[in-house]
């Protein structure tokens, strides 16, 4: 079969694994999006008839877990399974093993979701709830099923990585002196970062929270478990972002009619992420007591240097788009922008996601600014930030690239393409409204994660918003939230229409071929491909950044100062 025939014909069983993962991802996306819309109406006071304020937090947990953990992890597993198979151009080592890790991830997801939704279903047993949000800070306790589910999801993702490394070692045996293909390199480096990062949350959940929630151990140290979580908490955002970079570097150039300007630069930025993404966790704990200022300053500096690969990516990706535009006849300093295929949903969605990431980048720099954090910590500025980054740069890229990928893994033409064309633009508009208002109300001090933030029963003091009154910002959030949900509905209709349509409607209209970069892998130094070296350096950096603080926290007793489990309800 020629390289031109669709992926599903060349690798039918791998395509099935990709379809399964994407299917679970899209279901989680729809439910999570629905909950998001209900929350945006509830907390803004626009319509509080759907849920009780005390149930809001179970729904917020579901929104966070389903979108930030389930949708992302399953989509990434599907995308990377396609990427590895395509770039090594060989079947996965064992279909049984691939189904196993998908099964483990799915089992974990089902268990966690049962625990969370237990809190929303009235007739469920009342200890079956997990209103702990997706950060599940001790001493707030969730039902053990929640922690067991989370652990299984992570173990499943570890097995997926083993599947791909297994593929890599078998490929290496027959291609001893070749450079690792770019897409495979990106998958392997992302997963090395993931193995290092998940050590934190795996320790927290398996060693502390599961026994603690089962009553086997009486108490856990909240600061220690919180630090273990955020050891994982920042690299997880790069676990979401690097697959988007995978799309921006290796597929977007082709969609814009051009070629990636530099393969080695892409590898450099992925290596920098592997090195710097984990020893920065304390920038989520700038305002925590019990952590010395020195550790926070180190985390801040590392975080600032973590901007470098992203800033390089911005240049390389936009340059590749410019190259494509000029190859399509684009002229002028910026006139080439018009020559890009804005009427193609795959291209338009990914490009808009990249544009919005630029805005999210700035609000991330503010979050990273150690003492500047007093201004925005735990205010609505923070959700304003991450709805631009994971909520758009990653999520919109994943949705948009599905318009290009799903036909190749189903062998079916994209259905309802008209809706697909509108969907990314509607997302971009809705997200701007919601996120802009969230940033503004964050600056006024409105707290995040609250069912009714207007809060002034006791103090009688109103928020001092800067642009527009408090009511106006909350209304703008609700409008943005509803537009986003409509956009998710459009996406879901296109996807399920394509999954369910008959296969014999003629050949798919997308080509899976990816042109060679302008400056190929061979131009870059061989050391770039030395995964063992980069992983070792990454481990050393993490040991330096986290060794002393962990020692401090453990030296006064692993379980001291300890707190017993506390429920979320009174």
């Amino acid at each position, binding site marked *: 079969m020629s390289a031109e025939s669709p992926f599903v014909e060349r690798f039918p069983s791998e395509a099935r694994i990709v379809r399964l993962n994407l299917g679970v991802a899209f279901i989680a996306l729809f439910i999570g999006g629905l909950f998001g819309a209900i929350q945006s109406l509830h907390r803004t006071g626009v319509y509080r008839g759907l849920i009780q304020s005390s149930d809001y937090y179970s729904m917020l947990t579901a929104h966070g877990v389903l979108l930030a953990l389930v949708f992302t992890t399953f989509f990434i597993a599907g995308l990377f399974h396609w990427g590895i198979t395509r770039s090594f151009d060989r079947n996965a080592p064992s279909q049984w093993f691939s189904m196993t890790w998908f099964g483990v991830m799915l089992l974990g997801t089902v268990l966690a979701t049962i625990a969370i939704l237990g809190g929303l279903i009235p007739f469920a047993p009342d200890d079956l709830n997990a209103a702990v949000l997706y950060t599940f800070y001790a001493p707030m306790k969730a039902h053990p099923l929640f922690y067991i589910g989370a652990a299984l999801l992570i173990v499943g993702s570890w097995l997926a990585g083993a599947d791909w490394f297994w593929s890599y070692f078998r490929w290496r045996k027959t291609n001893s002196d070749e450079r690792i293909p770019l897409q495979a390199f990106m998958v392997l480096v992302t997963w090395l970062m993931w193995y290092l990062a998940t050590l934190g949350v795996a320790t927290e959940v398996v060693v502390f929270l599961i026994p603690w929630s089962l009553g086997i151990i009486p108490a856990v140290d909240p600061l220690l478990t919180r630090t273990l979580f955020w050891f994982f908490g920042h690299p997880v955002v790069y676990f979401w972002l690097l697959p988007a970079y995978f799309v921006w570097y290796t597929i977007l150039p082709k969609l814009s009619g051009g070629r990636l300007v530099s393969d080695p630069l892409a590898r450099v930025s992925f290596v920098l992420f592997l090195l710097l993404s984990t020893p920065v966790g304390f920038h989520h704990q700038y305002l925590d007591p019990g952590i010395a200022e020195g550790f926070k300053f180190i985390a801040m500096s590392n975080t600032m240097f973590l901007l470098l690969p992203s800033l390089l990516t911005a240049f390389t990706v936009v340059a590749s788009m410019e190259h494509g535009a000029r190859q399509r006849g684009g002229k002028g300093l910026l006139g080439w922008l018009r020559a890009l295929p804005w009427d193609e949903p795959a291209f338009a969605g990914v490009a808009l996601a990249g544009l919005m990431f630029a805005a999210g980048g700035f609000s991330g*720099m503010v979050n990273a600014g150690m*003492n500047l954090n007093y201004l925005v910590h735990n205010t609505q500025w923070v959700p304003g930030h991450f709805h631009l980054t994971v909520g758009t740069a990653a999520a919109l890229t994943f949705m948009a690239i599905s318009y290009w990928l799903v036909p190749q893994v189903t062998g079916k033409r994209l259905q309802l393409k008209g809706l697909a064309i509108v969907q990314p633009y509607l997302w971009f508009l809705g997200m701007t409204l919601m996120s802009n208002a969230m940033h503004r109300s964050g600056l006024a001090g409105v707290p995040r994660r609250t069912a009714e933030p207007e809060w002034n029963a006791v103090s009688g003091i109103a928020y001092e918003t800067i642009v527009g009154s408090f009511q106006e910002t909350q209304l703008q959030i609700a409008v943005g939230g509803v537009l986003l949900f409509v956009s998710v509905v459009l996406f879901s209709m296109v996807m399920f229409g394509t999954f369910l349509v008959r296969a014999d409607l003629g050949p798919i209209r997308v080509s899976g071929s990816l042109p060679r970069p302008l400056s190929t892998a061979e131009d870059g130094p061989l050391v770039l491909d030395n995964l063992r070296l980069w992983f070792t350096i990454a481990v050393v950096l993490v040991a330096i950044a986290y060794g002393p603080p962990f020692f401090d926290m453990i030296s006064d007793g692993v379980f001291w100062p300890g707190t017993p489990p506390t429920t979320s309800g009174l």
Partner: protein
Amino acid sequence: MEIHRYEKIWFVIALLMIVGFIATIAYGAVGAGVEMIADDGGTMDPNDVSGTEFEDPGVRQVGEDHYEVYVLSQQFLFRPGTTEPIRVPAGSTVTFYITSTDVMHGFALAGTNLNVMVIPGQVAKVTVEFEDPGEYGIVCNEYCGNGHHSMEGKVVVVPESQYEGP
């Protein structure tokens, strides 16, 4: 590895910008004197506050115009703060000692730079200067349970002439 001249320039500018950001933050700490919350508040047993200052939380005068406020945070109220406002005189320096006996909380005076996490077992020590009379709303900005959205309080900065002592 041919990298285009413009991209090399951008690499250098990006590095300078990053160093500039770090320098700004260092200036904030050293020049503008913004202190970070650190571990000087110490630790305590969250399940037993007897024998600590938190047994009787409240305002204490410790100097000419220096006051200390011991605030106990628990599921869904600050003591003092919610039940009765924290009263301090204008023109005073106030050090807050804040801890929790149940779950994580947040202690933030909305619209100001006083914003700190409250972690069971840790004591958050924060010092600020209240120049002019006024009122501030205390907001719990870290999720702490299904009554989290009702957890709020008030700080009243009383004009010097009106202050009757803690």
